[in-house]
């Protein structure tokens, strides 16, 4: 169990502001030492346990953690009702990653109830009661794993104690089975619901005394459980942010500058206000620095708000709106010029060193061959299918918000700061998000509606059009890698050189555009030279599913394949040999898996499994090939093998992608497999044809007609295999994404002998 309580590191490419999530884990661990408390007065009654946030700091662990206040009676975590229903409160947002199902499963397993008894409810958003409530960084499961298990185990223990009193037997004679306490000797069974009154009078056991189930005893975890919101989804019931409706609600849209960073000077507001269905129109000055991605900043774009009696009236009025924009401080970026400049710089060394180890010049001097490759990847939009939106009602001294955000905990103080309210004057209701992928980590749309709502005094939904959503995003930043490697006479990789050309402001990479310089295979080699040059930019960027890794894997794992080809080696053998040389970072074990750290054994195991399941090494017909890639991110080890064919016109067919992953034991097999399949499709979509380009600071793609999300006929079959190790479970929203693109590109090379080094592949003349 020691590995369960170890701290964990976040992926190094998760932007600094999300590293706060690590603190959440620490807090959860501190809480777990204090355990749970009974609470009363909750609708439905029965046995209700809440997280004990009381006593924070008393053991020296809780400095800076939330104070108790009077909210204690309202933070239910798990509730066993007299009617045998078990209500489990899901604390984090669900934007499609499935935690609203997976997290309650963990409670239900330890409580030992039948899943059909369980009702899942979205918990309120309140940091003082639930701690951080966030969907990001694939952290929901590892951060909450132990707390959720202990919540279920505590309630189960109390129900057993109540049954012991009821039956006048020893606790040790009792067991549980699917919502019943069982006395085997006398074949007596008592439903949990009949015990809740008695149990509520008993003390909550100390967390340290709880005996948690061994993995071999699991009945629910690892099974395929369908999503708790499925019925609402398939019948079209209100569920998402965009579905929120309130009496007398009006509809707003904020018209944003076509050039990133421009500000409105004036507009023909009187004319717009005279149009049918228009309620109001006004200039929004904006706040903070919305170009810079931030989780908890009170920031929103300037623009012109149009308020109407319907979304369509607001959208249509844009056609009549004339705005004079001040572009004096606007972005002037040109993607085509950035590509040209980076290509020129690629022949040189970088402006600054990120990492220099060993004697790289000697390694190159002694090399049998020194492959080189210049890789390019594009900016990309999150393109959540539900465009950004939020609903708010400003009531003078308070505001109520309905948001599909990924970071509700950060949204509350951001709005409070923006409007000059106290945090407890901001109420936020969490709604399901129609996709997240990192876009909804930023609360610019929440701040936007809060600002507009303050002007109106009636409920308002602020809706972004698709064009707004794609035209202003915290984009996945593009970048360039100029690689050179040394291959020894023995066919071993002996040196790795990378001049990383990225985008920056004020001397630092923009959000998610950084490189550690210790990325695999550097951590397996004695000689490396990693340098960096930053191209100045005015573009916004931010975390996008598997930040950093989503692009680095493409460049690094494709160039690694160039190395194995240059060495005349089988790529599987080449990778396995490299894993053996990986230096494990200080701290080792589970806790050391941040940074460039990966577990060589787990890496080798998934790579072998993917190869085996895909039939690696089999003869392929002309024009058809297998490609392999491995990547470690978000604590997940994933290897993938793609099987592709390419015709003479460079038309690509991806027949199958075989995935092997190790994220510890699987919580919900259905959800985990779905995330992996979706990650591969998303990765092929991004590899194939998605790109955001810009000229003069203006984004050139504004809708799906120029941003071709992969369609069903283009999608590969995705065959998923998990190695269920005994490590604590980790998240799966992100780590299956990075290896897919390089596996496909390496397969294209195997099929054709053509090395693709530019993403999207449409730039290399490919279609799908």
């Amino acid at each position, binding site marked *: 169990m020691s590995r369960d309580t170890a701290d964990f590191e976040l992926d190094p490419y998760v932007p600094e502001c999300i590293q706060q999530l690590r603190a959440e884990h620490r807090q959860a661990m501190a809480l777990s030492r204090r355990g749970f408390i009974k609470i009363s007065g909750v609708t439905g009654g029965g046995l209700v346990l809440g997280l004990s946030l009381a006593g924070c700091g008393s053991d020296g662990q809780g400095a800076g953690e939330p104070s108790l206040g009077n909210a204690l009676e309202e933070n239910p975590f798990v509730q066993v009702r007299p009617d045998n229903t078990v209500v489990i409160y899901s604390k984090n947002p669900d*934007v*499609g990653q499935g935690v609203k199902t997976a997290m309650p499963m963990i409670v239900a397993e330890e409580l030992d109830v039948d899943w059909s008894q369980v009702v899942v409810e979205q918990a309120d958003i309140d940091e003082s009661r639930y701690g951080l409530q966030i969907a990001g960084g694939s952290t929901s499961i590892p951060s909450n794993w132990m707390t959720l298990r202990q919540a279920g185990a505590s309630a189960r223990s109390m129900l057993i104690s109540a049954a012991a009193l009821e039956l006048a037997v020893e606790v040790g004679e009792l067991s549980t089975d699917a919502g019943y306490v069982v006395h085997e000797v006398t074949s007596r069974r008592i439903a949990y619901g009949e015990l809740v009154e008695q149990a509520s009078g008993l003390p909550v056991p100390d967390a340290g005394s709880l005996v948690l189930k061994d993995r071999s005893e699991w009945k629910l975890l690892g099974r*395929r459980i*369908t*999503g708790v*919101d*499925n019925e609402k*989804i*398939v*019948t*079209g019931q*209100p*569920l*998402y942010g*965009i*579905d929120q*409706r309130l009496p007398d609600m009006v*509809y707003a849209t904020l018209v944003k500058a076509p050039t990133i960073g421009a500000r409105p000077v004036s507009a023909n507001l009187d004319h717009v206000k005279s149009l*049918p*269905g228009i309620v109001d129109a006004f200039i929004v000055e904006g706040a903070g620095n919305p170009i810079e991605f931030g989780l908890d900043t009170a920031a929103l774009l300037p623009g012109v708000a149009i308020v109407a009696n*319907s*979304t*369509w*009236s607001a*959208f*249509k009025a844009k056609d009549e709106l004339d705005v004079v924009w001040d572009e004096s401080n606007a972005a002037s970026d040109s993607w085509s010029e950035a590509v040209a400049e980076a290509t020129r710089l690629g022949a040189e060394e970088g402006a600054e060193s990120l990492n220099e180890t060993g004697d790289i010049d000697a390694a190159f001097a002694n090399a049998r061959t020194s492959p080189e490759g210049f890789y390019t990847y594009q900016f990309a939009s999150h393109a*959540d*299918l*539900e*465009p950004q939106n939020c609903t708010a009602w400003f009531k003078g001294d308070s505001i109520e918000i309905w948001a599909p955000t990924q970071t509700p905990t950060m949204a509350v103080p951001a709005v409070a700061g923006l409007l000059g309210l106290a945090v407890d004057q901001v109420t936020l209701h969490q709604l*399901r*998000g*129609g*996709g*997240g*992928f990192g876009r909804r980590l930023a609360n610019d749309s929440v701040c936007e509606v809060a600002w507009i709502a303050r002007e109106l005094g009636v409920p308002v939904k602020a*809706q972004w*059009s*698709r064009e707004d959503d794609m035209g202003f995003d915290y984009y996945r930043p593009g970048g360039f890698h100029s690689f050179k490697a040394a291959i020894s006479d023995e066919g071993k990789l002996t040196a790795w050189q990378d001049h990383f050309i990225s985008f920056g402001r004020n001397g630092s990479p923009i959000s998610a555009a950084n490189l550690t310089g210790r990325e695999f295979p550097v951590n397996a080699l004695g000689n490396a030279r990693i340098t960096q040059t930053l191209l100045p930019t005015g573009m916004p960027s931010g975390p996008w599913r598997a930040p950093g890794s989503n692009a680095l894997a493409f460049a690094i794992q494709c160039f690694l394949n160039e190395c194995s080809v240059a060495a005349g080696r089988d790529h599987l053998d080449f990778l396995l040999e490299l894993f053996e040389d990986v230096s494990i970072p200080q701290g080792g074990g589970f806790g050391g898996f941040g940074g460039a750290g990966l577990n060589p054994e787990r890496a080798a195991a998934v790579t072998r499994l993917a190869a085996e399941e895909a039939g690696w090494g089999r003869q392929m017909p002309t024009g058809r090939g297998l490609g392999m890639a491995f990547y470690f991110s978000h604590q997940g080890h994933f290897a993938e093998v793609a099987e592709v064919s390419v015709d003479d016109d460079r038309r690509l067919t991806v027949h199958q992608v075989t995935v092997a992953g190790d994220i510890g034991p699987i919580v919900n097999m*259905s*959800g985990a497999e*779905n*995330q992996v*399949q*979706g*990650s591969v*499709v*998303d990765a092929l979509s991004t590899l194939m044809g998605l790109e955001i380009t810009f000229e003069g600071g203006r984004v050139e793609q504004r*809708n*799906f*007609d120029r941003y071709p*999300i*992969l*369609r*069903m*006929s*283009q*999608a590969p*079959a*995705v065959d998923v295999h998990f190695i269920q190790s005994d490590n604590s479970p980790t998240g799966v929203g992100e780590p299956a994404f990075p290896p897919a693109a390089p596996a496909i590109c390496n397969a294209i090379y195997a099929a054709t002998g053509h090395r693709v080094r530019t993403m999207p592949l449409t730039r290399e003349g490919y279609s799908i």
Partner: protein
Amino acid sequence: MLELNINGQTVEIGDDVDPSTPLLWVLRDTLGLVGTKYGCGIGQCSACMVHVNGVPLQSCQLPVENAVGQQLTTIEGLAEDGQLTAVQQAWIEEDVAQCGYCQAGQIMRATALLESKPSPNDAEIDAAMSANICRCGTYNRIRRAVHNASQRLAASGGLNSGGDV
């Protein structure tokens, strides 16, 4: 005043609604039928798919004045008396959804496909369903769910058998 027939009921649309308004926004904002989703507004993603006289159409491309006199069906109108259709049941059983935002449109498209082709093969499913974007990439499962629904229908005697599957 426009009169629409939606999910078997006649509803009146007030004069405050511009007759050129896309049906999508009348459904969502005027009538509160929010199951039909806005994704792109240009007929590219099909999140807004409804049936017009049984034919799947993108409601963001249909001015409400042109919907008058047509039999309109939305995702809310598929299940009768709380009895989910074979397609809806298959979508739950295969656990298709991730974020789920596109799935109403996918289900409307799949329902229409199975009306015309009760036992579609993979290529026929791909051809029909490729008009619908799923940003989460649930295509493997959508295909399985269409096959699943097809088998449910075969076992129960067709889409119009009362949905008792």
